[in-house]
């Protein structure tokens, strides 16, 4: 087991280095001169040259890369060309909003996937429409789901808010739902929840289908198993059979798919945040793209890509703990 954990950690470390190298190379080929950006557009050539030397841009590539890696490890990702702030502090400011949206959406996705799988495997009457809608929804681009939601639930019905997080929060966790509860602010909690609902759903539909399909296949195969027949023959009630024998035995593959999808969600959150003006990292990225603010784009890629790699590694380890056969 320890060997497996070490191996998986090593692989994740290699991937992080590859990701950083890729981002570094992209930064080299991107238009725009970091030295000029550093001193400003009107600076004299001498000042630009001095900045070039100060930033180490006159050194050979491998040395520059090591310097870049060193700085990144110490939390220095350069200055954003758009906000003129250090990219790291920008990211720190926007990370909680993204984390809350993704985690909320992940819980929604799990619930939708469970409903999808159970209603399919148990042939619940009338739920074919639900599964059909979810399947079709999963082929839609996330921005269409978001916009459709805004038109219907904000424009027509006035049930839900259009954009943003509703509540300004920075302490102590930066999660609206947690902070409002800690402060005993129930209206804030409800407002935060309402603001989370549409973007959360827009982000949740596609992963819900991927997880739900795997879970449904697992449920159906577990239903035919001998131990289920035995459990029924012993006289266990149907719910007990379902919960203790069928669901628990079909979770394995669905778990690893869930981890994979959680990683995908951290990458896919960009478009949803853009649609809902959600003040997170994805919105920050979407704002940086039209301005060609590459230091910011690179920072977001490193952060979200890093989260993706780490989440996948952690899921692999959790799975190995749950099922030691995987380490062989």
């Amino acid at each position: 087991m320890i060997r497996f954990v070490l191996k998986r950690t090593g692989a994740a470390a290699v991937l992080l280095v590859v990701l950083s190298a890729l981002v570094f190379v992209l930064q080299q080929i991107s238009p725009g001169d970091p030295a000029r950006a550093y001193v400003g557009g009107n600076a004299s050539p001498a000042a630009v040259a001095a900045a070039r030397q100060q930033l180490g841009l006159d050194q050979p590539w491998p040395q520059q890369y090591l310097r870049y890696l060193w700085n990144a490890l110490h939390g220095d990702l350069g200055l954003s060309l758009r906000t003129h702030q250090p990219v790291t502090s920008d990211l720190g400011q926007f990370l909680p909003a993204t984390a809350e949206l993704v985690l909320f959406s992940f819980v929604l996705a799990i619930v939708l996937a469970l409903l999808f799988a159970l209603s399919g495997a148990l042939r619940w009457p009338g739920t074919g429409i639900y599964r059909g809608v979810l399947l079709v929804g999963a082929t839609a681009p996330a921005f269409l789901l978001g916009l459709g939601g805004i038109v219907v639930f904000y424009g027509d019905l006035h049930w839900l808010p259009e954009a943003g997080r509703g509540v300004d929060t920075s302490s102590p966790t930066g999660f609206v739902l947690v902070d409002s509860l800690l402060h005993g602010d129930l209206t804030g909690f409800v407002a935060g929840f309402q603001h989370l609902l549409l973007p959360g759903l827009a982000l949740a539909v596609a992963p819900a289908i991927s997880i739900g399909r795997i879970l449904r296949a697992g449920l159906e195969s577990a239903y035919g198993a001998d131990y289920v027949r035995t459990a029924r023959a012993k006289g266990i009630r149907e719910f007990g059979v379902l919960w203790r024998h069928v669901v628990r035995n079909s979770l394995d593959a669905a778990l690893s798919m869930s981890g994979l999808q959680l990683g995908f969600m951290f990458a896919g959150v960009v478009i949803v945040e853009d649609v809902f003006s959600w003040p997170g990292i994805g919105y920050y990225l979407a704002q940086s793209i039209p301005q060609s603010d590459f230091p910011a784009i690179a920072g977001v890629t490193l952060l979200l890509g890093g989260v993706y790699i780490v989440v996948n590694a952690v899921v692999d380890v959790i799975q190995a703990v749950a099922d030691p056969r995987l380490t062989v």
Partner: protein
Amino acid sequence: MTAISVPRRRFALSLGERFRPAHRIVNWTLVGLLVLTTLVAVFASLLAPDNPIQPVGDLNLPPFSPGHLLGTDNLGRDLLSRTLIGLRASWFSALAVVVIGLLFGGLLGVVAGAFGGWIDGLLMRFTDLFLALPGALVAIAVNAALGPGLIHTLIGVSLVWWPYYARIIRAEVRGLASRPHVEAARLAGVGRLRLIFKHILPGVVPTAIVTASLDIGNVVVLLAGLSFLGLGQSAPAPELGADVQHSLYLLLEQWWIPIIPGLTVMVLSLIANLGGDALRNLLAGEK
């Protein structure tokens, strides 16, 4: 014929067997839809009633207005024409990405699968490396570094889209290489290249086609997302994702202007998914 059909009927007890002919018709219809979409894309400029980048009518006309089936946008351009030309860009871009992925990933997969040993190990480690990176995010970063533009988008997406094909085709090649007909050919002294081209590749083609056709929908959606973020073609060119972005501010008054291009993306992706499924069913049924 009757001699064959009698025992068939006796064993045709399962529902799937009984509905087989109906299934075949549905499957062929869905594959036909795939072909039809491609034809619409090919003849988009002939089908488009107006110039997609010139104002031709009043502003913000709703769908089913006389002369403008889908209405007009905020600059008075015909939405049907813009949608058709945008559809062409989306469909062909997605096809291009899938074909590039199939060729590059397929080449790697065939070489790795057919040669085995350290070549296989090296190529597959390389593939896994790309597979483990977050594809959409890397595509955005590459595209942003190169600057906006359709070619840059295609480079960015193609760069992250091939590993999947390399994996699948390698597995298929390895499976085929241990089949009796390939072993027999090898024992008969057939050379390695001839073995690959004559005995293994023909068996890989159906899997490759099905995988690719099931994938077109995903690529259409990813490309629309990049275009929505402002990474595709520049402003006046009709592009489904970018058209949504540019008319976002009209969402609550003239909702159809941003929604129609978005719906088009969804329909394309739906057709690609259903058509790919149908193709798989047809190929599986004929084995």
